[in-house]
């Protein structure tokens, strides 16, 4: 008889018109790492909101047993008092408060007078930081930490609440490989200390490497519960459960037939906007028509900075170097100039930099190429609707209409809107920065298919990605970037993850 710390039985949660969860079953053994996977919209987040009391007891049907007893949480405070802590994908730390203040926020360490006991606060914070392996002074403001370290602060905060069941929503989505590996190690250590973890993740290699068991959700239903430790659970096996069909391959096939050179960057150098250091140092690269070129690099290597500085100097200062389109030197000193020269850049952070989330699909699709729809400054809105409808159909954007608000779409569909927007500017070269971050396997495959369609049409594509398998699966050539310098260019036939990692880690001393 297994010892289950958590059992959720026949959970059904309906919103007006939609059943978000239908008879979902979730059982988590004490002291294991349990992964929940499923495509976006499968109901993972809803299930976790039910569990943590965000949707209070009574607003759903079904039974939750925690630690052997039925529970009915009326709010987050209820669930936290029982030792269930959820760490959301969007970290919820207050940037200008110190690490210690963040850890004990709402749970302050007070002295007898009722005032905050700072010595105790900072001392306990230091202990917690040590236990998660974060070597920072507890009085450091959180804003000075990178995402990876902030994640650790969140976990330290959870530990301060005497957590029994820790829920991590996409914990490594925003982390680079090194930070991800560190986080996974920490999860293993927590497991040894007897803390149960639920992890929601799209990264199947992480699931197979760390999880003990996994529950697969699809369309608000439990598809299956797989024991990973029992072996025989491959990534393909999980994907089949998630999408309900076999994906022949992660990456659709494509014939590589590069044509003329489209974009060439020469001796590109960019200084950090506020600090006195070079973030891109003498980088040169080129991309041809019908070719997909990858840029690999660790976080902080200057990948996004390189792309954004090329794209109308939207990052950095003291930019020097030359840009050539089709062999002719161009000036792209503003985003508008870059766009009119046929360059498009789809950002890594679509919510912050890519989309107007409160506006509809139509406005977002037309926003970068609005002038194409306008005569003497007047927009032809019927034509605009038609363009958006065409995109919705071609890109398979799942939304009731082009007037649907973009903020309500799933990540994959939002990304398709971003791509539609850039395709409408009719670019010759598309720079895609982390094009599949935070989107599910099915949508990833669709995005890859779209990219292949574009290069078949003779566009040039540059993909920046933290996921090496993605670069290896999609690109024809891969540039490696380290500390702002191009450290190598490898044809995909000769590239392996190990070789790329080696080049990415080369020359890591800061330059300039």
């Amino acid at each position, binding site marked *: 008889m297994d010892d289950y710390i958590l059992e959720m039985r026949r959970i059904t949660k309906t*919103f*007006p*018109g*939609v059943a*978000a969860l239908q008879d979902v079953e979730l059982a988590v053994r004490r002291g294991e790492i349990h992964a929940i996977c499923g495509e976006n919209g499968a109901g993972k987040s*809803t299930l976790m909101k039910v569990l943590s009391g965000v949707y209070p007891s009574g607003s759903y049907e079904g039974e939750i047993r925690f630690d052997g007893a039925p529970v009915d949480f009326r709010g987050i405070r209820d669930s936290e008092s029982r030792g269930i802590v959820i760490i959301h994908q969007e970290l919820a730390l207050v940037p200008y408060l110190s690490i210690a203040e963040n850890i004990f926020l709402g749970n302050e360490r007070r002295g007898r007078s009722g005032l905050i006991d700072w010595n105790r606060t900072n001392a306990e914070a230091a202990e917690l930081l040590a236990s998660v392996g974060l070597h920072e002074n507890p009085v450091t403001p959180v804003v000075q930490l990178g995402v990876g370290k902030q994640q650790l602060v969140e976990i330290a905060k959870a530990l301060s609440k005497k957590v029994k069941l820790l829920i991590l929503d996409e914990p490594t989505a925003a982390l680079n490989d090194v930070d991800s590996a560190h986080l996974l190690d920490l999860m293993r250590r927590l497991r040894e200390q007897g803390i149960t973890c639920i992890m929601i993740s799209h990264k199947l290699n992480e699931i197979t490497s760390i999880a003990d068991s996994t529950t697969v959700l699809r369309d608000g239903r439990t598809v299956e519960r797989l024991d990973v430790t029992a072996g025989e659970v491959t990534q393909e096996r999980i994907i089949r459960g998630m999408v309900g069909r076999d994906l022949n391959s992660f990456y659709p096939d494509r014939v590589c037939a590069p044509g003329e050179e489209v974009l060439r960057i020469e001796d590109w150098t960019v200084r950090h906007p506020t600090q006195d250091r070079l973030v891109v140092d003498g980088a040169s690269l080129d991309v041809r028509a019908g070719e997909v070129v990858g840029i690999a690099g660790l976080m902080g290597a200057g990948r996004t900075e390189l792309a954004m500085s090329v*794209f*109308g100097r*939207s990052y950095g200062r003291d930019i020097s170097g030359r840009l050539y*389109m089709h062999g002719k030197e161009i000036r792209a000193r*503003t*985003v*508008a100039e*870059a*766009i*009119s*020269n*046929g360059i498009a*850049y789809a*950002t890594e952070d679509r919510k*912050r*930099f*890519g*989309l*107007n*989330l*409160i*506006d509809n699909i139509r*406005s977002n699709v*037309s*926003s*970068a190429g*609005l*002038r*194409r729809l*306008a005569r003497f*400054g*007047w*927009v032809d*809105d*019927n*034509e605009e*609707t*038609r*363009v958006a*409808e*065409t995109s919705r159909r071609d890109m398979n954007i799942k939304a009731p*209409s082009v007037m649907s608000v973009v903020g*309500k779409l799933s990540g994959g569909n939002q990304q398709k809107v971003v791509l539609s*927007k850039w395709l409408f500017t*009719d670019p*010759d070269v598309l720079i895609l920065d982390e094009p599949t971050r935070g989107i599910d396997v099915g949508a990833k495959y669709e995005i890859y298919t779209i990219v292949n369609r574009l290069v078949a049409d003779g566009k040039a594509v540059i993909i920046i990605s933290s996921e090496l398998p993605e670069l290896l699966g999609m690109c024809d050539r891969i540039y490696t970037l380290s500390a702002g310098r191009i450290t190598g260019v490898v044809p995909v036939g000769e590239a392996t993850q190990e070789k790329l990692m080696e080049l990415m880690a080369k020359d890591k001393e800061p330059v300039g």
Partner: protein
Amino acid sequence: MTSTKPSSAEKSTESAPAAALHAGTSDPRTLILNNLRQSGIFVALVVIVALFAFLTDGLSLSPGNITNIVLQYSYILVLAIGMVIVIIGGHIDLSVGSVVALTGAVSAVVVIRQGQPWWVGVLAALAVGLAVGAWHGFWVAYVGIPAFIVTLAGMLLFRGLTLRVLDNISLSPFPTEYNQIAAGFLNGLLGGDGFDAFTLLIGGIAVAGYVVSCFRTRVARIRYQQPVESFVLFVARMALVGGVVMWFAWQLAHARGLPIVLIILAALVLVYGLLTRRTVFGRQVYAIGGNLSAAMLSGVKVRTVNFWIFVNMGFLSAVAGIIFSSRSNGAQPAAGNMFELDAIAAAFIGGAAVTGGVGTVVGAMVGGLIMAVMSNGMQIMGVDQSMQSVVKGLVLLVAVAFDVYNKRRAAGASR
């Protein structure tokens, strides 16, 4: 680079006007729910109009009083047009009251003190308004100081300049021509027995124009295979709008005729309604307010757009300043005090969002009318000034609370 113009839409086999008679949904529930945000405010206006008609024994709907409401609040509505654009762009303008005073004062100095013709005063006021707008635009767009600070400074600065321009005294009266801008009527151009036929004609033209434009939109939407309301509902909507406009014209025709300010206001609403919805500039304002970074990375020249938003606000402040000085037949050092707050309130009651990216000119107009009808109604009833202020404050709060509630509900429904 190559530029491919998207090919024109496929023609549907059915002739479009014929299709217009059939296609569409008539489920009023869907339509009302879909447009709750918009329709809610219209309903609120109707309720408030009805309430005060009841409370004042119909006095608030008398021809004379309706004319009064138009004359009394026109300048607030003009300001609200500019303000809602500023707010959509994610800014605020606290200076418009002072700018109204300054432009009126400059006009008064030019016309009254220096004896120039009336139109020189108008041009001078507009020039000052544009200059003030450019000043604000420069600091907001090119220096990057938040509009709250820039226009707070402007509020003090331009109030001070008003006092200097006027040497701390009031100037009056304006010559008749200038006075006609706000107090004048187009009356008796076509005769009529006991009413003004010209006013009715203009009303009729307005209704006809509205119907034609709506019908054309409908036909175009059907040709592009967009959902439309059922034909019955379409006719009902046309009849309702037409009825209200003609009733309004009828009332005006039985009072003093068509106020010149109403023509100015109607023209501004029409132009700015189109400007915000249908021009590249207007759409970029929404884009900037909705997500500044995304707009910037989409090639929107954010600085330029922000600059012109404020130049435009300065221009409309000058228009309001001219109307106000004309109506009060002179310039006072304290003119326009607190106008900014009325204009801001009108925009927010009309559904604009504090965070930017949301709002409509028509919404702001309805919001302004709600305030106008309430103030006017309470004045007729002899409600104390202090209570009027309390009621206005509460209405603003309730309107925005309703909006927030609505948004949360919408967000909840979509999970």
